[in-house]
């Protein structure tokens, strides 16, 4: 036991003191935050400022309408002109327009105007076309209202009178499934990231003894199983450390930037919402399960990666090709989250949250929706039991493969051969 602790200590310290650890701990959250803020900033400032000329053959639109709507939303300026398209197409650019809209004559206003065309020499993105369409529809609503005799009063009633639905649990408490979904996705995604990044770290860590040719020296002092376990736990602790540091970092940076008024309103709102609903959803419960599935998933997958690392001969490509099926399982799990988030009680979600391969990720997407509501106790219990059994099995299996692989310098083995090692006598 003491020896495992020695190994854990060495593996942990060696990695935590490396420059790359410090850089990635600081860099990642910074990059991520820069991305969020940057994108929203960019979005705000570079939203297309369109200047569009309008030729209206339908007669339903007038200058006043356009001018009023331009005033409320200056990102799109539409100007009604009385010209022929053919002449306009040669001059619109010179006059400062990005393009022009041709509204054809419409036989019957009740059928709307389906074939308005937006002409320009370069292609504008879907959002620009959408902007124009939205604006026109906005104005068209006024036209419709007028034609139908819907005055201001009635218009008010139409827009204000709505039915909105909030979902609640059986006790009548509001459950915000959008936020639950977000938490579920974030949790699942985090576990996915950690499994991939640190799974391959374990694989490379295991190859370290072979590459440095120190495997036999170490194995003459400790049992192979102790070495494997020490490496997995040591690297796992590094993952935990980095994860905590990230959380703290993001938290600190966020609070700092909240103080300054530069922070984006939308982000503020969302985080505010999340923090509100945090008090509704059972946060300690979610954290507990997050820890459980994080650990379970980590042990389950990293032991498989350790087995692979022990079998290959220093060649990263060999390692990657052999680990491909394992990596695919992880990727498959994250791919299924879109389904499980959409329908947390559907068959796929339920089974995927119970089978140990995908349960760490998928169960975490389901839990924020409510235990025992969305996730009945028996499903949770079964999933946890299977995950524990699962990682005990993979650790045992990998231990057997590891003890043979670590001393072998021959050709690259196939999965079949590796399984044979597992069941050979020591």
């Amino acid at each position, binding site marked *: 036991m003491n020896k495992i602790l*020695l190994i854990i200590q060495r593996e942990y310290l060696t990695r935590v003191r490396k420059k790359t650890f410090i850089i990635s701990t600081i860099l990642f959250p910074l990059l991520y935050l820069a991305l969020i803020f940057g994108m929203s900033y960019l979005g705000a400032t570079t939203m297309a400022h369109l200047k569009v000329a309008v030729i209206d053959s339908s007669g339903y639109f007038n200058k006043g309408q356009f001018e009023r709507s331009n005033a409320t939303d200056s990102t799109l300026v539409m100007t009604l002109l009385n010209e022929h398209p053919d002449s306009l197409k040669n001059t619109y650019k010179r006059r400062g327009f990005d393009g022009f809209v041709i509204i054809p004559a419409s036989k019957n206003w009740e059928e709307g105007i389906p074939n308005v065309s937006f002409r320009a020499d370069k292609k504008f993105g879907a959002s620009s076309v959408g902007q124009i369409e939205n604006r026109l529809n906005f104005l068209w609503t006024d036209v419709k209202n007028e034609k139908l005799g819907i005055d201001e009063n009635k218009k008010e009633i139409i827009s204000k009178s709505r039915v909105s639905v909030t979902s609640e649990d059986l006790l009548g408490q509001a459950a915000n499934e959008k936020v639950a979904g977000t938490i579920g996705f974030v949790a699942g995604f985090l576990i996915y990231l950690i499994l991939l990044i640190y799974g391959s770290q374990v694989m490379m860590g295991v190859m370290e003894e072979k590459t*440095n040719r*120190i495997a*036999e*020296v*170490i194995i003459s002092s400790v049992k192979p199983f102790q070495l494997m376990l020490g490496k997995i736990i040591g690297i796992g602790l590094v993952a935990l450390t980095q994860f905590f540091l990230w959380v703290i970092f993001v938290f600190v940076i966020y609070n700092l930037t909240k103080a300054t008024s530069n922070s984006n309103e939308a982000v503020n709102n969302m985080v505010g919402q999340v923090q509100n609903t945090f008090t509704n959803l059972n946060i300690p419960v979610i954290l507990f399960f997050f820890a459980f599935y994080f650990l379970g998933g980590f042990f389950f997958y990293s032991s498989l990666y350790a087995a692979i690392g022990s079998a290959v001969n220093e060649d990263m490509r060999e390692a990657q090709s052999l680990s491909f099926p394992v990596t695919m399982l992880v990727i498959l799990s994250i791919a299924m989250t879109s389904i499980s988030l959409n329908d947390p009680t559907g068959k796929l979600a339920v089974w995927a949250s119970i089978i140990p391969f995908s349960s760490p990720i998928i169960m975490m997407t389901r839990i924020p929706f409510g235990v025992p509501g969305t996730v009945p106790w028996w499903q949770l219990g079964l999933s946890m039991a299977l995950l524990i059994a699962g990682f005990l099995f993979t650790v045992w299996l990998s231990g057997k493969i590891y003890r043979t692989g670590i001393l072998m310098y021959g050709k690259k083995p196939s999965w079949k051969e590796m399984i044979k090692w597992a069941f050979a*006598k020591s």
Partner: protein
Amino acid sequence: MAILELNNLKKYFATQKAVDDISLSIERGQIFGLLGPNGAGKTTLIRMITGIFYPDEGQIIFDGKKFDPVNDIGHIGYMPEERGLYKKMKIGEQTLYLAQLKGLGRSEAMKKIKEWFAKFDMDSWWTKKVEDLSKGMSQKLQFVTTVLHQPKLIILDEPFSGLDPVNSNLIKEEIYNLAQAGATIIFSTHRMEQVEEICDHIVLVNKGKKILDGTVQRVKQDFKENLFRVTFKDRLLAEHLAIHLFEVKQKMEKEVIIKLDPGFSNNDVLQYFINKGLLIESFNEILPSLNDIFIRLVEGTPASRHFQEVKN
């Protein structure tokens, strides 16, 4: 008292009988040579002694008791042929780590490291990384990590490979010192001239079986061919050598190598030459070198072990 006893050890792999019923006994304080061609089973044997492999059959008795892989390895030091160190780790830290893995406490390990580093002139190496060392330097370091914890049994597999004569000598001196201090050394190598120089007792294995077991002197005696080298002050003539006492293997101007006929003694030969009026300068038995014995015994073994059918 025997420090190590191997009784009928067997280790079979799917494709060959690596160790096929080997028994031997090693006394405390001996410098013991474990020899054999490639693929003979030496490494497998050593791995069973160090607890890396478990024998399929047979017993290992270490220091009078049944070998306990968990506890006894603290008393064994092993320098494998395929050896290395963590390149990116600092030397002082790494030596400490390896010593602790062997069971030494931290302060005790530090004390011993300082002693050995001073002895081998390695004081300036503490904070350097292993990748900064030359090959010879890292071999020295590996030797230190092997013997640091004062093991009772030290197993060295090709310890001199890659060392220059100065460092080779240094290690050789240390081997003698360690043996003097009571440690037992198992030395595995292909370099027979070193074996002759250093070892007391040797065992030759081939194809998983033991084919020689005895002291160096004994083995040479067993394999001697009654060859003698006689040198003279005078020139030798053909008529001097025409006698049935011996067979002439090689003749030079003032020297001859003869194979003595078993019915006659050394004195007979000396008497003969004296009677012939020749002035004898020297008369020496030529014992076979271990190299020759080795080749003679394993000649005919294919260059690499063929795969065998292993029927259980």
